[in-house]
């Protein structure tokens, strides 16, 4: 068997595994409804949710909410990552910074974002800014910690070699430490990408006009449209998976380039 045939076969196997996995989930879902005797307003079936998902997108119910959430997630992720990477480098390379900042960073991370979100909405308003702050906060920690771990685990011989070539502090960080820590940093970003979606939804629950979190609440509490609520949840899940895959694609590209 040629290498090309082998790749082809692996792709088919992956696709088949995905389809079989999805089929198992859908059958289990429908079985739960039949066995549990749930009414559609408590747990709608996959076909009903699928139908509502399609009509929700075609009649323009879901799209504006999804776009709002996407905007919040992307901006929040960028802000959190942009602050998390330099903080991680600082924590890895400065013992004083680590001693001073670590307790506060860990303490801030321990606070449930669900409790902080209403306060953040109060301080920054119920518009885009508060969602970006919430997403940024939730993304910051995994990115900062993974960067710190990644930078600390750089092979010391590489650093010694760079110093022997009289590399400056900046050169050391940009050309040795960050590239070497890249897999760890991107691992943190993978986690951050999915958490950013959670942050946006929590932020929208704390107060918003638009967004998938708002749509979930509307469908649940005002419209009593349970299939629409599930369709919104499905959209949130798709958004999270899509963002995760984007980070994985970037990771593959950067790590492959580096190799």
């Amino acid at each position, binding site marked *: 068997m040629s290498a090309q045939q082998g790749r082809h076969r692996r792709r088919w196997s992956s696709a088949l595994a995905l389809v079989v996995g999805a089929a198992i989930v859908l059958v289990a879902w429908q079985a739960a*409804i*039949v*066995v*549990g*005797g*749930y*009414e*559609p*307003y*408590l747990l709608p079936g996959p076909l009903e949710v699928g139908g509502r998902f399609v009509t929700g997108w075609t009649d323009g119910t879901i799209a504006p909410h999804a776009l709002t959430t996407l905007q919040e997630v992307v901006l929040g992720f960028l802000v959190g990552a942009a602050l998390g990477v330099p903080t991680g480098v600082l924590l890895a390379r400065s013992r004083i910074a680590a001693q001073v900042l670590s307790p506060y960073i860990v303490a801030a991370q321990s606070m449930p974002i669900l409790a902080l979100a*209403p306060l953040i*909405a*109060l301080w920054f308003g*119920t518009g885009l800014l508060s969602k970006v702050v919430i997403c940024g906060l939730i993304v910051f920690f995994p990115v900062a910690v993974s960067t710190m771990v990644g930078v600390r685990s750089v092979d010391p011989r590489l650093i010694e070699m760079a110093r022997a070539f009289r590399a400056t502090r900046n050169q050391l960080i940009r050309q040795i430490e960050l590239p070497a820590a890249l897999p760890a940093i991107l691992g943190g970003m993978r986690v951050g990408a999915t958490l950013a979606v959670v942050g946006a939804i929590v932020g929208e*629950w*704390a*107060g*918003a*006009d638009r967004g998938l979190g708002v749509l979930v*609440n*509307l469908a*649940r*509490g*005002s*419209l*009593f*449209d*349970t299939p629409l609520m599930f369709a919104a949840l499905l959209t949130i899940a798709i958004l999270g998976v899509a963002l995760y895959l984007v980070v994985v694609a970037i990771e593959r590209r950067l790590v492959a380039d580096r190799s």
Partner: protein
Amino acid sequence: MPIAPYRHRLAMRAAAVGLLAAIVAGCGTSVSTILATVGPETTPMRVGLGYIPSVQFAPFYLAQQAGYYADAGLEVTFENGNDADIIRLTGSGDYDIGIADGTSLIPAVSQGIPVRYLATLYADFPSIVFAKPGAGITTAADLEGKKLGMPGKFGSSWVMLQALLSSVGLTPADLEIVEFPDFGQRVAVEEGIVDAATGFINNEPIQLARSGTAPIVLAVDEVVPLPGPGLISGQSTIDGPKREAVRAFVAATLRAMADIAADPMRGVEAAEVAVPELAADREGQLAVLEATVGAWQSPYTEANGLGAIDSGAWTESIDFMRAMPESPVAEPVTADQIIEQELLP
């Protein structure tokens, strides 16, 4: 063929009883001992009240403590939850009785949730707009161009605001709405951050009045008689063996409401027994309960008795909510599909 929910629950309960019997037998106690303790005529009732235990639920606490439910052969347990969950769980039969706002019930029934409105608790719609004197707001028309605070553009407050504004030819676009998802709109009115806000007749106006500023209150009742919170039950419950128990529960609750209307302090005392933390501010609780009692009564209930359901008002409300922009009422629904008058005493 799917197993019907009721049959499924019966099967589950039978299994649970069997398991209990096995455990009890293992412990050397007979099942008949347990049944004798509970009493053969007692009908268990799960009742979903509002989100947080409070003095507003005093009729339920009083009816429980005064033995009105027990006298009717009911063994009542209360659970707290939000409106949307209570409606779903009552529709599914998990709760035998619930409390829900009429403006929530209309979209719920339009979505096929099998619940019925059995008795009116709030004959006046409790959601209102309030403003400090001097804000230049004395009528709904004065809201034009003003800043108004509210928790969000949903629920009973949102329906009430649209009804109030439509009565003077305005829409929400004619004012600036500031959202306070943490329900901080009273402070915002006090601090002058907004000119007016939505609230509840037995909450924010009472607190403002107690702090020395009696607010201007704009009520919606004269415009559209929106249906306030009331007792609800699932269609399967009222069609099933618990129908008479539901009737007895409604009667016992209305009896307690009448007792409290005559002497609100009885309600405060009952609430303090149920929720001891309330005793820290008896005067405040009494003020809240007196305002609540006021909202139980309207010209319609004065003519027809506490709990009476004004079907004409329901029809008006349904028509109004169907005509709202971005109406929450998905499918046409009639008052007869929602209200059930036969279980009133």
